[in-house]
């Protein structure tokens, strides 16, 4: 600004007026103005570009995981093989191998056969077992069965596989590539919707790995979190906002709540490890412990949101209730709370969304184990969806990159749904007094 030059203007030539000085600097100032404005716009564009990159990278990597390559086998359910043991433990692997050998009779030698068996997933035998167990009629028949291909074949079909690399460095040998090309020429290789991804538990084999176990774990964890943090959070907010006297004690509580909201989440994990696991002896890897830790973590969020919802209720409502003879508790329960509830629910949903995406504290309490079984209760060992993402991200197979991204897509869909619900709730019930 040129204000500082104004007092000096009288020693300048009389013909030069202040206006001229201002006008001379004007174009420069306007340029600075435009530049500054551009920086602002640029900052926004940069953050949105980052957001777009993130989504493009995740979706680009992940969408193909919703499909899985299957190979068609002609399986003869040989009664001789199946009769040797009980139906549940029979040698179904043998059936798969035999049908592969029938398709490529020219393959011989141990190494060649092992290569041939390698193009089909080890999950194929379980699929055959389930077929026989649900329908014993199949025994003695020859059926066309679509079984999942090995993850390397899957990657090849999806185009994530470089054929130009030398044979020693890639995961499929030249002969295997030839067989796969032959199969796809015969129409015996097909991509189908990947149901195993949505219904299966974790697995070391990418083609069999699914997120259902992790989703169930997350569900149980969040149920505990919601059941504990919502009532406790609302109760704490009601006390602090409606009943608490203004004294040292309530000040201390408030400082604590504000601080806890900013404590790193991993510290809550340390708390869970030291208190819930080592002191109270609760089981490791259990959703109930995860729920407790996440409750402590989300409580400040819910309390702060609930308090602002309570302050938004105008005092006239309270005065009216007290005026007709309600007790303070009746005023809160019958009038203030129902009006503040939508705001509290919004805060709770946002808190739950944060809890759903939280990983670090769960690592501390052992919810990172490799767990194949689907958890069925609050004390079964389990993982959670974000932890599953972390575990898969560490796995070296290329097929897990795709599945990690797909799991992230699922997680983001949940989060977006929850946040959208919160926004809708707020829009619908928002009242301007």
């Amino acid at each position, binding site marked *: 600004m040129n204000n500082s030059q104004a007092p000096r203007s009288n020693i300048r030539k009389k013909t030069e007026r202040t206006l001229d000085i201002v006008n001379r600097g004007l174009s420069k100032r306007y340029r600075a103005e435009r530049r500054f404005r551009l920086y602002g716009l640029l900052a926004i564009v940069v*953050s949105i570009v980052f957001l777009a990159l993130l989504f493009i990278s995740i979706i680009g990597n992940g969408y193909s995981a919703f499909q899985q390559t299957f190979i068609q086998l002609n399986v003869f359910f040989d009664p001789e093989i199946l009769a040797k043991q009980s139906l549940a433990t029979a040698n179904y692997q043998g059936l798969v191998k035999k049908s592969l050998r029938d398709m490529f009779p020219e393959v011989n030698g141990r190494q060649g056969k092992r290569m041939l068996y390698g193009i089909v997933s080890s999950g194929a035998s379980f699929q055959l077992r389930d077929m026989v167990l649900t329908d014993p009629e199949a025994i003695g028949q020859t059926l066309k069965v679509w079984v999942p291909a090995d993850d390397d074949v899957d990657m090849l079909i999806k185009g994530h596989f470089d054929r130009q690399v030398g044979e020693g460095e890639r995961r499929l040998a030249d002969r295997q590539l030839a067989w796969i090309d032959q199969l796809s020429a015969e129409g015996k290789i097909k991509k189908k919707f990947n149901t195993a991804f949505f219904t299966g538990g974790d697995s070391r084999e990418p083609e069999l790995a699914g997120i259902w176990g992790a989703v169930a774990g997350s569900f149980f964890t969040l149920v505990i979190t919601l059941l504990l943090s919502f009532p406790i959070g609302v109760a704490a907010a009601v006390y602090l906002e409606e009943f608490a006297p203004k004294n040292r004690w309530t000040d201390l509580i408030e400082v604590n709540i504000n*601080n806890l909201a*900013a404590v790193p989440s991993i510290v809550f994990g*340390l708390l869970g490890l030291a208190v819930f696991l080592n002191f109270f002896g609760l089981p490791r890897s259990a959703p109930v412990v995860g729920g407790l830790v996440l409750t402590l973590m989300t409580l400040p969020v819910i309390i702060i949101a609930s308090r602002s919802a309570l302050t938004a209720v105008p005092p006239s409502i309270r005065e009216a209730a007290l005026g007709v003879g309600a007790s303070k*508790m009746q005023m809160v329960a019958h009038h203030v709370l129902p009006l503040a509830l939508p705001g509290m629910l919004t805060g709770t949903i946002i808190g739950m969304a944060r809890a759903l995406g939280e990983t670090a504290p769960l690592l*501390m309490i052992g919810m990172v184990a490799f767990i194949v079984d689907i958890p069925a209760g609050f004390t079964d060992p389990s993982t959670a969806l974000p932890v599953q*993402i*972390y575990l898969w*991200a560490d796995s070296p197979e290329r097929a897990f990159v795709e599945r990690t991204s797909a799991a992230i897509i699922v997680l983001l869909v949940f989060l977006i749904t929850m946040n959208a619900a919160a926004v809708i709730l707020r829009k619908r019930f928002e009242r301007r007094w």
Partner: protein
Amino acid sequence: MSPTILLFILLVLSTCGYYIGRRRAFTVGGGTTGIKNLHSRPIYYGSLTALWCGIPALLLFGFWLAFESAIISHLVVADLPEAIRNLPAAELNLKVNKIRNLVSGNIIAGAIEPQIQAAADHYRSLKATSNAALAVVTISTAIMGVVILRAKITPILRARNGVEQIIKYILIGCSTIAIFTTIGIVLSVLFESIRFFQKVPLTEFLLGLKWSPQTAIRSDQVGSSGAFGAIPVFSGTLLISAIAMCVAVPIGLMSAIYLSEYAHKKFRAVAKPLIEILAGIPTVVYGFFAALTVAPFIRETGGILGLSVSSESALAAGLVMGIMIIPFVSSLSDDFINAVPQALRDGAYSLGATRSETIKQVILPAALPGIVGGVLLAVSRAIGETMIVVMAAGLAANLTLNPLQAVTTVTVQIVTLLVGDQEFDSPKTLAAFALGLLLFLVTLILNVIALHVVRKYREQYE
């Protein structure tokens, strides 16, 4: 009887208590017409009965469950043969765990000694006794509550006041959980840290230049000396946080300025939620993005420029962390800029200042305390951020300021030291708690200062 069934029975008993109390109130009042003789509405008599039935029983139930396993283990250990009881604490712990596993029917590695089997049977029988006793005690407490209160119900009993008093105590109890959480955090990290500092002197931890927490299992092992000098870990944390701040503060601040001072209302309505989506994305997703997309990109770009970039460079982790923090800085700054009174802006405009001049010389200085507070909060988040660095930063504790090299952070070390099986008194495990204590203290100090500054600022213009 399993705890779930017991809880359900308590619920049913409380419901019954409610109806019994209400009926009793009608009776003592003298039928439906006599309600006017009662001090409170009949539902309050019912509720009071239900509360008296449920709460003492529930408290008992909670305490019992919390201390049951510790007491039973103590009893079982006391009954173990002399030879086992005199084992060192760590081995004894192992035995107790084995017994517990045996009880819960888990698969156990190795042969099962007869003493252990006997102890497990003992454990099981104690557990069964304890469960039965718990059921009897809680149910009789619940019934006693109902009986006592039913006898006390008279028309002059102030049931509403009683109920409200109890609810108020419940509310107070809920609000103190925040304090207990803080105490729990402090105690849980403090005790283990004290044990750590008994083994490793505080000065070595705070001033040592070498961090390699691998302790030797055998005494003659090479290369696993266990050095606990945390300076490289701190420097790594600061380096990554500094990079994150270099990304987040300018971008966050400029976008907040643009959104609040320049942007058209419609543009703001679109851009602001978009930026806030960044805040809602879980950190594990950022970590994956950093490790999969950003780190290779930076390494290749560095390769083209002739620089040697580590595949776990601090730059990648810091950059992505910065992106994560943008919305945090942006929305806080937005609040503070909007809180600057319009009169200040109008004053600057009337003197002929352009918009950018107003912003730079009037609004930003006025909003500065708030923005500084916001940035401090952001720094505390960057320091405590875990998943991005666990997935994208390294494990090797290099003492370097070069953003292209791999560094490690406090949170990464905590995670690597504590994930998986741990022995509970090795300095390696305890070091994680010492780092946790430090992390908690540093973020606490930052938060206290920041919240204080922010509150002072808010009051200034209110």
